[in-house]
């Protein structure tokens, strides 16, 4: 049986474990129909031209893990931003770990999707927001919707700011020979609310792991959401991240994506602007080696006047790695005075590495400022020589230059300890010790 058939037939078994009378189940049922109709995307589709799921589709993924292993905090501490105090929503093989988590209902809700989907007190919010910005057409998103049951649920009421950043961590232990995870997150920031989220998917095993994640983010008027995705997974772990963001007037949503690891990573990051004076910012640093593959697909849909969007993605590709950047900007006719900026700069440090980069602009308004720039280059020989003449060996000199190249993106990380951590990950990835914390 191929993976699609297996998933479709598993839906019946899945229904035994959820409340089929809940309105969300109608959404799931619709979603599985869509997935059944469309199946997995293939390379014939323009959006999947450079990223093939064929190898993953051949794996007989386990869909329902049988049992969970408790993890000791000390064994996984290093994956947390343990330098500071944080709220934590932690899952082990898709199952919530209360032992590793620190949730709250003190003025804000930082808890579980399963709770939000089952308790009456959340029903009204679920009715208003659940699956309202996520695509009902895109097949992988609908696959996730069909099996949506667990994930992070975060609700920040008007004028509230949680005391500390929120970490969402997904561990895969290798209890199953192969495992498909489908977390579903819902994040709502009401008027003037503000929050910071760090999300990480971490495999602890050499077994094949595939995560197909969907996150919906709603930012009401004046809300500020800072979202950091740390993608530094092991080499048999693949991730399809589908993030959908709906913004209202004067809100700011920034998503930083740091992609250093994993086998295949696809980031579908979609912004929909539903108000004026919105800021949508997405930034990324991608550093790959071996045969790693990362595909960034962004969409910003400007649907109201006087808004901005900023995209800045830097990529460094070594060995036989492959990078894809596809940045789509749509400016509706009504969206006058839009400022949309897009930048994608890449360095290839190996002859066998590949980058496919493509801006896609669809502009229907006439009074807008839109700019885009893609560059693909190599390390500057003169700059390397400069550093070498100061006694810095070539390898370290190259690492310093790559760090400098990625620096623009790092500068806007607003949690200093996270920034430090990313710096260390970069130094590790580049295989250098620079004698100071970058």
């Amino acid at each position, binding site marked *: 049986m191929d993976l699609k058939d297996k998933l479709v037939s598993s839906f019946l078994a899945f229904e035994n474990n959820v409340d089929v009378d809940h309105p969300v189940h109608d959404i799931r049922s619709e979603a599985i129909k869509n997935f059944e109709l469309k199946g997995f995307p293939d390379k014939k589709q323009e959006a999947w031209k450079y990223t093939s799921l064929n190898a993953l589709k051949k794996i007989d993924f386990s869909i329902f893990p049988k049992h969970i292993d408790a993890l000791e905090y000390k064994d996984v501490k290093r994956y947390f931003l343990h330098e500071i105090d944080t709220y934590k929503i932690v899952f082990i093989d898709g199952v919530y770990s209360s032992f590793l988590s620190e949730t709250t209902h003190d003025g804000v809700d930082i808890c579980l999707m399963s709770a939000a989907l089952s308790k009456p007190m959340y029903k009204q919010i679920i009715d208003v927001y659940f699956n309202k910005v996520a695509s009902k057409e895109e097949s992988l998103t609908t696959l996730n919707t069909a099996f949506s049951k667990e994930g992070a649920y975060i609700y920040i009421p008007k004028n509230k700011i949680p005391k500390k950043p929120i970490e969402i961590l997904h561990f895969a232990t290798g209890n199953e020979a192969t495992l498909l995870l489908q977390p579903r997150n819902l994040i709502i920031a009401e008027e003037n609310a503000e929050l910071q989220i760090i999300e990480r998917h971490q495999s602890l095993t050499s077994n094949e792991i595939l995560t197909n994640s969907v996150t919906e983010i709603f930012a009401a008027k004046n809300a500020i959401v800072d979202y950091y995705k740390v993608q530094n997974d092991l080499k048999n772990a693949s991730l399809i991240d589908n993030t959908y963001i709906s913004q209202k007037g004067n809100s700011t949503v920034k998503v930083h994506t740091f992609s250093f690891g994993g086998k295949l990573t696809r980031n579908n990051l979609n912004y929909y602007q539903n108000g004026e004076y919105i800021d949508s910012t997405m930034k990324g640093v991608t550093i790959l080696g071996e045969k790693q593959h990362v595909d960034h697909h962004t969409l910003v849909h400007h649907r109201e006047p006087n808004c901005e969007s900023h995209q800045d993605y830097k990529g460094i590709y070594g060995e036989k790695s492959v990078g894809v950047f596809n940045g789509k900007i749509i400016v509706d006719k009504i969206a006058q005075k839009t400022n949309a900026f897009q930048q994608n700069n890449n360095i290839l440090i190996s002859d066998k590495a590949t980058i496919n980069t493509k801006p896609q602009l669809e502009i229907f308004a006439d009074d807008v400022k839109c700019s885009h720039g893609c560059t693909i280059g190599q390390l*500057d*020989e*003169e*700059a390397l*020589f*400069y*550093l*070498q*003449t*100061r*006694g*810095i*060996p*070539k390898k*370290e*000199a190259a690492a*310093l*230059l790559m*760090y*400098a190249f*990625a*620096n*623009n993106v*790092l*500068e806007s990380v607003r949690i200093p300890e996270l920034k430090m951590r990313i710096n260390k990950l970069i130094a590790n990835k580049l295989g250098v010790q*620079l*004698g*100071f914390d*970058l």
Partner: protein
Amino acid sequence: MLKVNNLYAGVEGNEILNGINLEVNAGEVHAIMGPNGSGKSTLASVIAGKEEFEITEGSIEFDGENLEETSPEERAHKGIFLSFQYPVEIPGVSVTNFMKTAINESRKARGFEDMPANQMLKLIREKSELLEIDRKFLSRSLNEGFSGGEKKRNEIFQMAMLEPKLAILDETDSGLDIDALRIVANGVNKLRSKDNAILVITHYQRLLEYIVPDFVHVLHEGKIVKSGTKELALELEEKGYDWLKNESVV
């Protein structure tokens, strides 16, 4: 200290240096002058070890050792320093952190431990005062947004920190106003000693009023066509380079 013997070098088959002979001893300051395109900067880069240039004949010796197989960083560890005409900008790496890395890499290569933090701070303070460098400047990203004068002052600050045996100053005067030139030259003069040597590369005589050389060499078409004392620089200023070109033809 430095011996350049009948050096021929070029890039992709184009010869730029055509038989250079030069000897620089400890305690000396040499100036290399010459018109644009005479090979001045190439000579500086070749001594510092730039791989882009191919040496087709001759050799460079430093402290009696042939540098042929020596990388630029190893040359730096041996005590060769090149001040760049166009220093490179490194966003996100502060002047202080950059100096820490450079100094500790050199120490590592010589088999020493990292310099203790307090000693490093003391050294930075001492040398930045020498170049009249503001504290704030040291926490800025290396060369990013620096004015021409700041970049050059920063080059000499690095020289002061690294204490090279041989410092090559490539067009250090270009882009400097008179005040900046005086500060930079002052710094260089304070670093002069009987144990080190300086090779000043310049198009104009102006800098040599402040950093007074023991010897002046004129480079033309990749060859030293005339050598003399500091008076030669004045003569060049007066007559320009053309009379030398004619002389070399004869």
